[in-house]
C-alpha cells in the first residue's frame, strides 16, 4: 500500500466513514453491505469500483482494513473527480474533493419512478446532516444504476441481509425472509454474506469491497456544487463523536429503512388480509400477537414493536398500524434496532378527519369487543389520521360528532358507560370517566357537558351520552386515559371537574338542605318545645308556681282541694302529683286549650272552686262511668288537637287540677247525656276553668262563676263515700295524667327522632362533601 496522506478533513471524513462501515468495530471492514452500499452510492461505474477495490488492496486481503478503506475512499474521490484511477493518484491528486456518495436508492427508483421524489424526500428527512440532492440522485442513478438495478433486484431478492445503508434492499427481501421462517434471516449486520450474493456482487469482487465505501457514501451525500461547503458541513458534523455521527447517519439512514416500499406494503396488505379480510377493519390484539409471535422475536421486542405501532393505543391494529408493525418486525429481524419512537415514515399518514372520528369508534369497539370485523368501511385507514390530527382542534370537533354516533352504535361502550353513569345524575359526574387528555378544547367541552349534565339533573341521555363520549374519545385518542370521574387530565379540567362536582353536591346539599330546611322549619314552629314556659300566653300573667303551690297544699288536704289551686303548668315532672290528680282535667284541658285564648277575656267568669270541690266529692262515684265515657270522647278530641296542643299539654297541665274538678262534675253530668254533648259541657267547663285559673285567688268570683256553671249543669249525682270516691277519682285522674304524660313523652320522642334524623342527614352530606373539601 502506498502511503496515504490525507488532509484533516479527509482524515476525519474517512475515519467517520470507516467507523460507519465498521459495524463490528473490528477495525477492519469486511466487504459487507455498508461498504458495498457506499461504493454504490459513489455512483461510479462498476468497473471503476472494481478497480478501486483492486487498487486499495481489498481484494487481496479479502477485507477492508482501515488503510484499504481510506485508499478506496480516496480512489473514489479520484474517480469521481474524473481522474484516472491510479495507485499514484491517491497522493498525487491534490485538492481532491471528498468522495461523494449518494444514497443508492437505485433499485427503488428504477423500479418506481414515482419514488424519486419520495427518495429525495427521504433524503430530505435525513437529520440535516445530508442535504438531499433531489435532482442529482436521478441523474446519477440513471447513469450508474441501470446495469446495477436489475442484478440488484435479483440480488435483493436473494439478499437476506439488509445492509443498513440501503434500506431499500432489506424491505424487498423481507417477504422472502418472512416466508423463510425456518431459515432464520440473517439478522444483524454481521452477516453480510456477500459471498455469492448474486451477479451484482460479482462486479465488486469477492464480496469484500464496497461496504465500507458504501457507508462512507452515506455521509458524503451532497450536491456537487457545494461540495466544499458540504464537506465542511459533513466534516463538522462528523467531527463530533464518531459514534454520534455514526448514530446520526444511522438514524438518518433509518428514515429510509423505515420507509415501506410498495412491494413490501403489498405484502403486508396481503398478510393483513389473511387475518382480516376487510382492509378497513382491525386486527385485534390477540390475533396480532399470534401472528407476530411467529416471527420468533422475543416477546419483549414484540411488546415494544406493538407499543410503537399501535398508535392510538386501542389494542387493535389498523392496516397502517399493521404495516408499521410488520415493517418493524422485519427490520428487527434484519438487524435493525428498534427505535424508541415510531419513525415518521411508519406513522399512519392517512388523514381523514371524518373517517378518523368514525375510526375512533371502531378501535374502541374492537378493543372492547375484540371483534375486528365490524369496522365499517373507510374507517381503519383514517384511524391513524386521528393521531396525525391529534393536536388539531378539528379533530376534537369531529370526535364530538362521532361520539354521538358511537355512543348510539357501540353497544359495548354504552354498557360500559352505563356502569359508570348510574341513575343518579349527580353521582354520574363523580364517576370515573375516560377522558381525553390533551386537547384542551375537548376538556372544555367535557366540562361544559358535565356542568350542563349536572344542571339538567337528567340521569338518562345527557349524562349517559357524555360519559360514553368521553370514554370513546379516550379510546380514539392515542392514549386511553381513564381518569376518575372527578379528575381530568390537566389542572384546568380537574378544577372544573371538582367545581362541577361540588356544584352537584352543592345542588344536592342545597336541595337536601332545602328539604331539611323546611323540615326544621316545619318542626320548629309548629310544635313549640313542650317545655313549660312561664311566659306562656295563658299563664303569662299568672304566677303558676304560686298557684301550684296553693294547689299542692290544697291537694295535700284532699283531692277536693285541687280545684281551687291553679295547676302548676310548668313541667309535668314538677307537678306530677297534683297533675296526676287531674287526669280527666288534662283530657278536658287539651281539648280546651284550643279555646283557651278565648277564655282569657272571660276571666271574670270564674267559677267557685269551692263548689267544684263539693261537686267533685259528691260525684266521685258517678264519675267513674262518666269519666270512662268521657275518656274516649276526650281522647279522640284530644288526639285531634294533639298536634297543636302537644306542646301545650304541659302548659295545660297546670290547669289539669282545675279541669279535673270541673270535668268531674261535667262527666258526672254527662253520665246521663249522650256522648256527643259531653264535650261541649266539658269545654264550657274548661272554659270556665281557664277563666278561673288565672285568678284562683279570687274565690269570690270563682264562686260566682262556679255557681253559674253548676247551675247550668244537669243534675249531678252525689256520692256517699267522699273518701272512697275521692280516691277513685284521684286514681282515675292519675291514670289520665299518666296517659297524657305518656302521650306527651311519645310526642317528644318523636320530635327527638326527627331531629336526630336531620342531624344524620346533615352529617352524611358533610361526609360527602369532605372528599372534595381539600381540593
Amino acid at each position, binding site marked *: 500500500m502506498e502511503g496515504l496522506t490525507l488532509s484533516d478533513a479527509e482524515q476525519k471524513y474517512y475515519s467517520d466513514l470507516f467507523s460507519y462501515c465498521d459495524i463490528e468495530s473490528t477495525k477492519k471492514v469486511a466487504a459487507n453491505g455498508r461498504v458495498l452500499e457506499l461504493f454504490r452510492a459513489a455512483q461510479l461505474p462498476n468497473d471503476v469500483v472494481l478497480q478501486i477495490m483492486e487498487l486499495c488492496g481489498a481484494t487481496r486481503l479479502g477485507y477492508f482494513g482501515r488503510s484499504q478503506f481510506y485508499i478506496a475512499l480516496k480512489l473514489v474521490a479520484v474517480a469521481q473527480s474524473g481522474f484516472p484511477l491510479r495507485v499514484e493518484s491517491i497522493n498525487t491528486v491534490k485538492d481532491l474533493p471528498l468522495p461523494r456518495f449518494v444514497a443508492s436508492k437505485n433499485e427503488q427508483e428504477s423500479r418506481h419512478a414515482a419514488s424519486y421524489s419520495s427518495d429525495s424526500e427521504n433524503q430530505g428527512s435525513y437529520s440535516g446532516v445530508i442535504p438531499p440532492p433531489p435532482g442529482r440522485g436521478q441523474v446519477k442513478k440513471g447513469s450508474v444504476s441501470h446495469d446495477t438495478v436489475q442484478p440488484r433486484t435479483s440480488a435483493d431478492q436473494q439478499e437476506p441481509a439488509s445492509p443498513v445503508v440501503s434500506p431499500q434492499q432489506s424491505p424487498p427481501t423481507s417477504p422472502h425472509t418472512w416466508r423463510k421462517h425456518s431459515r432464520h434471516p440473517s439478522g444483524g449486520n454481521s452477516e453480510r454474506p456477500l459471498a455469492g450474493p448474486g451477479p451484482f456482487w460479482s462486479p465488486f469482487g469477492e464480496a469484500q469491497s464496497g461496504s465500507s465505501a458504501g457507508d462512507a457514501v452515506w455521509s458524503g451525500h451532497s450536491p456537487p456544487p457545494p461540495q466544499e461547503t458540504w464537506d465542511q458541513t459533513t466534516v463538522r458534523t462528523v467531527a463530533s463523536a464518531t459514534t454520534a455521527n455514526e448514530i446520526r447517519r444511522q438514524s438518518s439512514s433509518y428514515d429510509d429503512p423505515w420507509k415501506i416500499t410498495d412491494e413490501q406494503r403489498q405484502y403486508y396488505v396481503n398478510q393483513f388480509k389473511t387475518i382480516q379480510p376487510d382492509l378497513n377493519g382491525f386486527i*385485534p*390484539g*390477540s390475533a*396480532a*400477537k399470534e401472528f407476530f409471535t411467529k416471527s420468533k422475536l422475543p*416477546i*419483549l421486542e*414484540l*411488546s*415494544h414493536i*406493538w*407499543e410503537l405501532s*399501535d398508535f392510538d*393505543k*386501542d*389494542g387493535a391494529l389498523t392496516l397502517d398500524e399493521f404495516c408499521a408493525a410488520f415493517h418493524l418486525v422485519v427490520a428487527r429481524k434484519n438487524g435493525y434496532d428498534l427505535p*424508541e419512537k415510531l419513525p415518521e415514515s411508519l406513522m399512519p399518514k392517512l388523514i381523514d378527519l371524518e373517517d378518523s372520528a368514525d375510526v375512533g369508534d371502531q378501535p374502541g369497539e374492537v*378493543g372492547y369487543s375484540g371483534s375486528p370485523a365490524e369496522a365499517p368501511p373507510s374507517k381503519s385507514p383514517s384511524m391513524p389520521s386521528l393521531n396525525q390530527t391529534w393536536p388539531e382542534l378539528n379533530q376534537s370537533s369531529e370526535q364530538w360528532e362521532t361520539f354521538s354516533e358511537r355512543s348510539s352504535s357501540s353497544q359495548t361502550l354504552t354498557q360500559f358507560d352505563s356502569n359508570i353513569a*348510574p341513575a343518579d345524575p349527580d*353521582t354520574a359526574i*363523580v*364517576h*370515573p370517566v375516560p377522558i381525553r*387528555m390533551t386537547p384542551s378544547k375537548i376538556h372544555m367541552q367535557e366540562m361544559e357537558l358535565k356542568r350542563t349534565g349536572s344542571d339538567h339533573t337528567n340521569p338518562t341521555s345527557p349524562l349517559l351520552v357524555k360519559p360514553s363520549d368521553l370514554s370513546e374519545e379516550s379510546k380514539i385518542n392515542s*392514549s*386511553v*386515559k*381513564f*381518569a*376518575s370521574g*372527578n*379528575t381530568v*387530565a*390537566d*389542572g384546568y379540567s*380537574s378544577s372544573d371537574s371538582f367545581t362541577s362536582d361540588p356544584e352537584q353536591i352543592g345542588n344536592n346539599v342545597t336541595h337536601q338542605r332545602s328539604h331539611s330546611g323546611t323540615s326544621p322549619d316545619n318542626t320548629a314552629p309548629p310544635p313549640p318545645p313542650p317545655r313549660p314556659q312561664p311566659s306562656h300566653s295563658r299563664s303569662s300573667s299568672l304566677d303558676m308556681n304560686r298557684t301550684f303551690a296553693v294547689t299542692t297544699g290544697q291537694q295535700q288536704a284532699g283531692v277536693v282541694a285541687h280545684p281551687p289551686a291553679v295547676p302548676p303548668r310548668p313541667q309535668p315532672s314538677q307537678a306530677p302529683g297534683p297533675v296526676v290528680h287531674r287526669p280527666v282535667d288534662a283530657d278536658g284541658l287539651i281539648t280546651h286549650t284550643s279555646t283557651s285564648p278565648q277564655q282569657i277575656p272571660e276571666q271574670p267568669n270564674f267559677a267557685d272552686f269551692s263548689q267544684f270541690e263539693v261537686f267533685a266529692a259528691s260525684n266521685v262515684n258517678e264519675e267513674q262511668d262518666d269519666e270512662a265515657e268521657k275518656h274516649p270522647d276526650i281522647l279522640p278530641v284530644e288526639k285531634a288537637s294533639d298536634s297543636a296542643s302537644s306542646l301545650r299539654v304541659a302548659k295545660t297541665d297546670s290547669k289539669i287540677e282545675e279541669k279535673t274538678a270541673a270535668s268531674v262534675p261535667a262527666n258526672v253530668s254527662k253520665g246521663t247525656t249522650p256522648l256527643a254533648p259531653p264535650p261541649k259541657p266539658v269545654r264550657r267547663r274548661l272554659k270556665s276553668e281557664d277563666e278561673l285559673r288565672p285568678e284562683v285567688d279570687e274565690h269570690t268570683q270563682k264562686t260566682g262563676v262556679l255557681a253559674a256553671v253548676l247551675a247550668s249543669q244537669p243534675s249531678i249525682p252525689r256520692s256517699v263515700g267522699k273518701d272512697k270516691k275521692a280516691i277513685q277519682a284521684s286514681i282515675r285522674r292519675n291514670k289520665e295524667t299518666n296517659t297524657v304524660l305518656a302521650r306527651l313523652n311519645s310526642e317528644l320522642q318523636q320530635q327527638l327522632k326527627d331531629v336526630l334524623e336531620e342531624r344524620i342527614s346533615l352529617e352524611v352530606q358533610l361526609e360527602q362533601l369532605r*372528599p372534595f373539601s*381539600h*381540593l
Partner: protein
Amino acid sequence: MAVCVAVIAKENYPLYIRSIPTENELKFHYMVHTSLDVVDEKISAMGKALVDQRELYLGLLYPTEDYKLCSYGYVTNSKVKFVMVVDSSNTALRDNEIRSMFRKLHNSYTDVMCNPFYNPGDRIQSRAFDSMVTSMMVQVC
C-alpha cells in the same frame, strides 16, 4: 419529584418498582411495603356501598417521617395500586401535582395493559412506561 414509583398488583406483589438510585434503595422499598397496609386500610374503610364513588386517589398515606419522605397512594378499579414516594424537602408538592402524576401513571399503565404481548401479572418492562416514569422522577429533582 418522585423518588420512588411502584406499581403493585392486586395480590400485593410489585409489578414495577423503581426508585432513584441512591444509596439506600431498600428504604424506599420498605416505605412502599408499609404503605400497602395503609392503602388496604383506606380501601376497606371506603365500604362496599361506596365502591362506585370511591376515589382512586388516596392521598397522603402517612405523614413524613424523619427523612422528609411522603408516600402517596392511588388505586385503580382493578385493585392495582400505585405508590409513589416523594421527596418533599425541595418543594412542597401540591396535591394537584401528585394527582396529575398519578394520572399519568394510570394512563401509561393502561397503555401497557393494552399491549397484547403483556400478560397481566408480568413485570412491566415497557420502554414507554419506563420513559414516563423517568420523566416523572427527574422532572423536579
